């Protein structure tokens, strides 16, 4: 009665489609405006008429011919009614419908609508064919160790891989739909009893509340559901490695898989999680620790080296000891620009090389990398555009930024370098420190699905440092990370892990 008060449009009144075949055809044609893609096939027998309505671009025609049509033709004495047809179809997913809207949706999803004239109901049978590429090696997160398999664009195949990784009855996969118009299927995946109820609820709520027409992929979905969309730092992890997702799920994280997207989105992920590679897990702990520290140090230098060069050469040359200053001055003697310009120019060239290399096919990309790197670097120095030492520094910082396992975080690291360089050119060390303070405050303000972004460093969770900052020998990681507030906190018994079978036994 007060429907108009709620502000919503009244739902469409249910409308059964016409019982006349010709009229049904017309109705479908007007609803689905797809031209010759919409195909009808009519069968006649003793005055009875049976019609198949389908979209020939969506269906698997061999399945339609061999299973659906053959089994109907083979049963010659069968009456053409809804029930009897349903009985002879050797398929799992068939539904009886008579609403026009349901029929249209069904046909649009790649089902065939079978209808005998005059019957109250027709049958939707699933003969869908989805085109997908085969399983391939991970491209963006390449590994030396560990499983190489990567997600593909098919949600079903992705769930299959994940379920084969985790044969746990508690692995839950809730259905979600993303996109009001595109109706992309999504799965909310978590392990019941490990993942925190609140985190699951946050994820579910945020995905459900999205009021969008279409979401092209999980990285985009991530941008829509993360807390601060102004920030340059990614707050949710996307990965194409199923084993990475499995490890994360057992640490109490929640994942979202989206149909037609080869990445999986999971969270909560803290800042330091973006510097973890699955290889750290597969390697022996001390090697993993070394590599992780190497990555963090590399990132730190990648952000700081070029600004430090600019600051020191512009304002604080007293900081450099005289022998070093001599060689620095010598290499910069022919450069006509101030250090900021010099550094920005070269950083720009490096970014160009990277971007061009990423856009080109692999083979050309390699050649271009070599040509660009050597020719431009060498020529720039000879022409007096840059100093040799700056080339070393910029190459180092570019390398450092590429060590980050997450491509999104690597890009963020490269981008934040530019404002720091400009500030260093403006106010030297004070400028660098201002940026540094700004980024600390900014990172403190960020959060990932309700959790703080800088855990386990702040708020301090000393135990969790073994998971994300350092890496400890496996027997000390008997607990799940505290920050994820997991319900089941123990991974294995700590006492048993300490038992040693030695002579006394």
């Amino acid at each position, binding site marked *: 009665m007060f429907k108009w008060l709620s502000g919503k449009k009244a739902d469409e009144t249910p409308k059964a489609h016409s019982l006349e075949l010709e009229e049904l055809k017309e109705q479908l044609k007007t609803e689905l405006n797809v031209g010759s893609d919409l195909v009808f096939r009519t069968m006649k027998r003793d005055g009875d008429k049976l019609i198949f309505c389908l979209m020939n671009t969506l269906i698997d025609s061999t399945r339609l011919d061999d299973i659906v049509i053959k089994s109907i033709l083979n049963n010659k004495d069968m009456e053409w009614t809804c029930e009897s047809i349903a009985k002879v179809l050797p398929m799992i997913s068939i539904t009886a419908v008579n609403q026009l809207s349901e029929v249209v949706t069904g046909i649009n999803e790649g089902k065939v609508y079978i209808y005998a004239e005059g019957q109250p109901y027709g049958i939707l049978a699933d003969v869908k064919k989805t085109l997908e590429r085969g399983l391939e090696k991970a491209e963006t997160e390449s590994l030396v160790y560990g499983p190489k398999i990567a997600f593909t664009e098919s949600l079903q195949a992705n769930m299959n891989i994940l379920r084969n990784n985790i044969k746990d009855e508690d692995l839950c996969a809730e259905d979600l739909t993303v996109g009001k118009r595109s109706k992309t299927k999504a799965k909310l995946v978590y392990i019941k009893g490990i993942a925190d109820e609140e985190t699951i609820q946050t994820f579910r709520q945020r995905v459900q509340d999205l009021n969008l027409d279409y979401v092209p992929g999980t990285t985009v979905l991530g941008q829509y559901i993360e807390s601060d969309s102004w920030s340059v730092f990614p707050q949710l992890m996307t990965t194409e490695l199923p084993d990475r997702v499995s490890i994360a799920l057992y640490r109490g994280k929640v994942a979202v898989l989206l149909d037609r997207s080869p990445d999986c989105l999971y969270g909560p992920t803290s800042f330091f999680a973006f510097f973890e590679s699955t290889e750290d897990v597969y390697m022996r702990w001390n090697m993993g620790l070394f590599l992780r520290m190497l990555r963090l140090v590399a990132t730190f230098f990648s952000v700081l080296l070029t600004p430090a060069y600019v600051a020191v050469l512009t*304002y604080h040359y007293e900081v450099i000891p005289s022998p070093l200053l001599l060689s620095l001055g010598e290499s910069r003697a022919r450069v006509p620009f101030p250090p900021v310009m010099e550094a920005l120019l070269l950083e720009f060239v490096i970014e160009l090389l990277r971007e061009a290399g990423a856009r080109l096919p692999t083979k050309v990309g390699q050649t271009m990398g070599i040509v660009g790197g050597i020719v431009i670097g060498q020529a720039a120095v000879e022409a007096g555009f840059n100093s040799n030492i700056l080339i070393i520094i910029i190459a180092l910082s570019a390398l450092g930024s590429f060590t980050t396992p997450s491509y999104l975080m690597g890009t963020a690291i490269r981008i934040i370098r530019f404002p720091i360089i400009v500030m260093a050119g403006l106010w030297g060390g004070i400028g660098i420190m201002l940026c540094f303070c700004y980024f600390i405050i900014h990172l403190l303000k960020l959060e990932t699905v309700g959790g703080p972004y800088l855990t386990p460093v702040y708020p301090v969770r000393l135990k969790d440092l073994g998971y994300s900052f350092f890496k400890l020998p496996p027997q000390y990681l008997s607990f799940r990370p505290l920050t994820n507030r997991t319900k089941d906190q123990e991974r294995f018994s700590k006492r048993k892990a300490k038992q040693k079978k030695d002579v006394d036994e």
Partner: protein
Amino acid sequence: MKVNLHPKEGLLINAFMLVFIIHSVQVGVGLAGLPRVVYLHAKHDAWISVFLAGTITSVVLIFMVQMLKQYDSADLYGIHVDVFGKWAGHSLNFMYMFYMTSTFFIILMNYVEIVQVWIFPTLPTWQLTLVLVLLVIYAVYGGIRVVVGVAFFSVVGTIWLAAVLFVPLQFGDFTHLFPIMNSNAKQLLMGAHSTTLSMLGFEIILFVYPFVKEKQKAMFFVQIGNMITTIMFTCATLISIVFFASNSLEKTIWPVLSMFKIVRLPNLERFEFIAVSFWMLIILPNMCFYLWAASKGFSRILRKKQKWGVWIIAIVAFGGSFFIKSRYQMDTATDLVAKLGFYFAFCYPVLLSIIVFIKKWYKRRESKHAETS
């Protein structure tokens, strides 16, 4: 206005964080010149004065925390209203807010002065002041959680500077220290009094207390924080006395920064450039906490949004920076704030806590009286 403040569960901080809060707010611009100002009064026994001042601070902290424990979850603003009523309480609150604003201002101006003297003599004051104030506003906008985070990263990110201070020790002459206890009690106390500006900051516990999760542990961690500060200040003074000759220490305005000059790495010299830059991270939590506490008072008293308070106080401080033009004015202003701090942070809280104790004791006796009769 309510006396007690009950923040949301998610805003509460661990009592352990009080170590970082107290320590980071105490260490600030004062430390850079601390050894000299104490030395002027207590001569080579300056380190005893500093240690004495630390002990006195610790006693004052006992009074403060005991006073806070009399209430459920109150800050100083609430206590003022509870003890003195609405009008007198609010006037005191405004005075405290004024004190914190001026401390904020003095920290800011002192740092800008250090930068101008050591690195950029020609840098206009307003530029750096503006950027720093905006930075602090950005932090305070994040609320208590971010401000405490800044304190934490300030301590973690700059503690290595304290280790670097031990490098000058190898050039030191320990005979400078002897004879110990040569100064008389008056000189020592005068020296202790002159540490006020450096020791200030612990009074922030009066405002942070409602946000502490485990309130019964607050006393322990506050004392630890103050202890670390005391040890650090005493060491800094000790090293300065050992490193500098008597009359040169009297003439060096920022002895702690000057000592960084001696540090020499294979690829780095003149370490004080880095130290002065890093000093920004040291003073950042001081400014954040004073701005946060003052603006909190604004929202508590006037029942306006805290954001308004932040902007008003920041603009006042920024506007004030135009009035200070010479070293002489700077000195006067700093001395004034140190004097204010001595009364507001050391004397007054002790007095207030005694009043609160008496009031609570009286009430308890009265209620007992009512029960028995």
